[in-house]
């Protein structure tokens, strides 16, 4: 495992490596089992398992891939990084057999191949774990793994028994427990990925492609995933690992390929590189990551949350956010962070406690009340919850401001367009036409669009859940600056939820850490560090400064 140019004490990776080393015993046994069971497909030709040369792919006038090159080695985890739109996903879909390249050459195990469908890709020994989990919620885990290639018994009937037994064996190899007969509905994202990995193993895939597998995982789940990836790599599998999180690439990969604007920039061993090298190659210019100054003028209390509880979800959460302040809630996915935000905004009802904005108490379960009090809410899933994707950009921006844009009871198109154009230019939104659908924007610009919608109402409090998930590096920095400016210049109180520790460190004037539905710790900008957040979030270290005592009277056990 290469840690590249990053100081080893700077990240939780050292912790996770300790955990991995401790786990190697069972890992060794697993490795043997997998190798024993591998038939022809797993055979390894002496040359590189996969070479893609000068691949191009256009969709109409859009050149998604101009010069795609990738070369994998046996037993390596190969990072693939690039901003959104760099052509990574197109390259992945070519390897998956979903898209056929317009030109270029693909060699698998030294043989030139045409992957004209997902079945051809599978047959070539390639397993792709797609970005949007390709889960069938109504089918069982076993069926999900074996879909389209179920073992058959007499009369070409599906042999469910063999299918379940095979999964049970694979799942045990991976050191996890997952009932093959349960339907997939309700599986966590992490478990869905384990299911996809089980699929790859059942295929005896020698090449595994993972498209942003960690995007929706908590830190702990990422560790578990990395253990499995490392296990596969040691067995000789070639893994192509795509991630927006450069730290992860340094943690788990040996070599990295950088792409920009559909072109291959370079492929290098990670040893000797630092994160800045990758960032520069990705954006093609230097990005100066300005670290947040501890905040300027903190004003009056805007949001006051007292003893907020929702049964079985979070318990006795109290904190406040001041005007001009950015408060970040960190913690594992599932620790109740997003749920607290939803309860404050009134999407979910609260069972106990109170929420007030600028001294005005909010009713439970009423987003209308929250909006009237000047609260804006940017949800985690902007495609599903933040935007109306099939609606024009200008109408999306105006969506929350209809009462200002009304004249004689009607919404006037001209008012709406003017309003939208104003906010689009203020946020430097990059768009084709304002009348184009929100779906035509890139991820980063979609996020700006959601922000514009709320900023149009001059909110006094902005709640943002995962503001930069899936956004490329340059736009990410822009969103960060925008939020900082909002707080500093407009005095907006910002409550932010983030799983990315560098973002938490950079943005938070104060950082709250949640664990198991309770506030576990609070850190000021000067106190906060990745180690302290991880310790508080996982409950591993109990004497971290800033720790909130949780055994006060009146607290219910979860």
């Amino acid at each position, binding site marked *: 495992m290469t840690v590249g140019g990053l100081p080893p004490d700077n990240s939780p990776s050292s912790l996770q490596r300790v*955990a991995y080393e401790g786990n190697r015993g069972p890992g060794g046994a697993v490795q043997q089992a997998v190798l024993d069971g591998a038939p022809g497909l797993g055979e390894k030709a002496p040359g590189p398992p996969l070479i893609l040369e000068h691949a191009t792919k256009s969709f109409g006038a859009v050149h998604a891939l101009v010069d795609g090159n990738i070369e994998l080695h046996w037993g390596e985890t190969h990072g693939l990084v690039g901003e959104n739109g760099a052509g990574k996903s197109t390259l992945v879909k070519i390897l998956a057999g979903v898209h056929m390249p317009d030109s270029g050459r693909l060699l698998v195990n030294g043989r030139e191949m045409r992957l004209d469908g997902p079945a051809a890709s599978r047959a070539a020994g390639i397993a792709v774990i797609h970005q949007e989990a390709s889960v069938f919620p109504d089918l069982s885990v076993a069926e999900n793994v074996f*879909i389209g290639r179920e073992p058959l018994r007499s009369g070409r009937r599906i042999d469910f028994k063999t299918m379940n037994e095979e999964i049970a064996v694979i799942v045990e190899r991976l050191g996890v427990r997952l009932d093959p007969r349960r339907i997939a509905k*309700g599986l966590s994202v992490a478990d869905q990925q384990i299911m996809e990995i089980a699929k790859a193993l059942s295929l005896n895939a020698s090449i595994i492609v993972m498209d942003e597998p960690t995007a929706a995982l908590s830190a702990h789940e990422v560790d578990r995933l990395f253990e499995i990836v490392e296990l596969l790599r040691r067995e000789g599998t070639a893994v192509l690992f795509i991630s927006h999180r450069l730290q992860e690439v340094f943690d788990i990969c040996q070599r990295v390929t950088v792409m920009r604007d559909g072109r291959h920039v370079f492929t290098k061993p990670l040893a000797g590189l630092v994160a800045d090298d990758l960032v520069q190659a990705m954006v093609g210019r230097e990005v100066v990551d300005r670290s947040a100054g501890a905040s300027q003028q903190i004003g009056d209390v805007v949001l006051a949350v007292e003893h907020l509880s929702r049964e079985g979800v979070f318990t006795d959460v109290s904190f406040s956010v001041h005007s001009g302040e950015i408060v970040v809630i960190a913690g594992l996915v599932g620790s109740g962070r997003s749920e607290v935000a939803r309860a404050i905004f009134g999407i979910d009802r609260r069972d106990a406690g109170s929420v007030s904005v600028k001294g005005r108490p909010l009713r439970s379960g009423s987003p209308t009340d929250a909006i009237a009090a000047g609260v804006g809410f940017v949800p985690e899933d902007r495609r599903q919850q933040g935007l109306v994707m099939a609606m024009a950009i200008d109408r999306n921006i105006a969506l929350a401001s209809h009462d200002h844009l009304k004249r004689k009871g009607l919404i006037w198109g001209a008012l709406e367009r003017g309003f939208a154009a104003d906010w689009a230019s203020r946020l430097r939104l990059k768009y084709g036409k304002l009348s184009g659908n929100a779906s035509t924007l890139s991820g980063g610009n979609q996020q700006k669009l959601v922000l514009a919608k709320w900023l149009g109402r001059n909110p006094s409090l902005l709640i943002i859940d995962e503001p930069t998930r899936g956004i490329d590096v340059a736009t990410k920095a822009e969103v960060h600056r925008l939020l900082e400016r909002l707080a500093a210049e407009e005095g907006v109180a910002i409550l932010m939820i983030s799983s990315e520790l560098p973002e938490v460190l950079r943005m938070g004037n104060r950082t709250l850490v949640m664990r*198991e539905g309770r506030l576990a710790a609070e850190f000021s900008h000067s106190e906060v560090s990745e180690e302290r957040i991880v310790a508080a979030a996982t*409950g591993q270290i109990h004497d971290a400064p800033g720790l909130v005592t949780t055994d006060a009277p009146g607290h219910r056990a979860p």
Partner: protein
Amino acid sequence: MSSQDTALIQASGSPQRLVDTVFRLREYGIIVVLIVFIAVTTGIQPRFLGQQNIKFVLLNATIYALLALGETMVVVSRQMDLSVGSVLGLSAYVSSDLFGQVHGIPIPVVFLVGIGIGLACGVVNGAITAFARVPGLVVTLATLYIIRGVDISIIGGGEVVASSLPAHFSAIGSDSVVGVPYITICVAIIIAIGTYSLRSFRAGRELYAIGSNPEAARLVGIPIARRVFSAYAISGAIAGLAGVIWASFYGTVDSTAGTGYELTVVTAVVVGGVAIFGGRGSAAGAAFGALLLSTIATALYALGVSPFWDPAFDGLLLVLAITLDRGIALRLAEVMRKRTFRHEP
């Protein structure tokens, strides 16, 4: 493995069994409702369980249940077939008219003609939906009218009367063993085979997969177009078969035969536990849905309620079924979230 791992794993185990159980209960629940309904009606009007009445309910349900088998295949793949009523009408007329046209035509040939007509209609539906990628709801709404139009133009003002049909043919819809019509037994066997096939063959499971997540189905290389096409073709063929049975059962066939059946069939399918957006449900459940609707229609009559109320009851049942499904889903999500949370590290 750390204690956190163990805890995470527990989180994925227990709530899921609950989900499975609840969905299974939802499917069997329809049988409970059916039994309760029959018990209550019989309590008020004992003649409801008379042999003649049972036979009528079963025959009536037989046609809907058969149509529901084809409809289930289409609905689980997140499509809909609204043309089944018109297909039934066309098949019923053309097949029964053959007895007058061709003297002494063997009954199996009549059945093949009816099935063939249905298959042809289904192939058209399927081809437009699957290969031209037009939503099946719209395609079959159009063919509902087109096929009915063809039916009317063939029949004109005429009709096939029962007396023109050979006795052997009419007997199909009336002969029975211990009070159960033969045709009901045959259809029950067909539905059992259909249910088993949907569950046990790749093509069947792939229909569920397509309905459950079409995008994922594309990514794993399921031949979506071919599967959807087949589902429509089979649904059409089944509607054609149902048309022949309809003709033997009712005897008199005019251009209104089967009008409005499509909505009753969709209702039966949903009441029977097939998810309206695909991915879940069984043909057996849909058949029980059809039996329930048919029982209710007859029960209302037996109880002296005006038959004009029948559609209102169907509608009520549909709303109840969908509300129940939705309620179960929401409640379950809530329970699972709380449980998952409790088990987490």
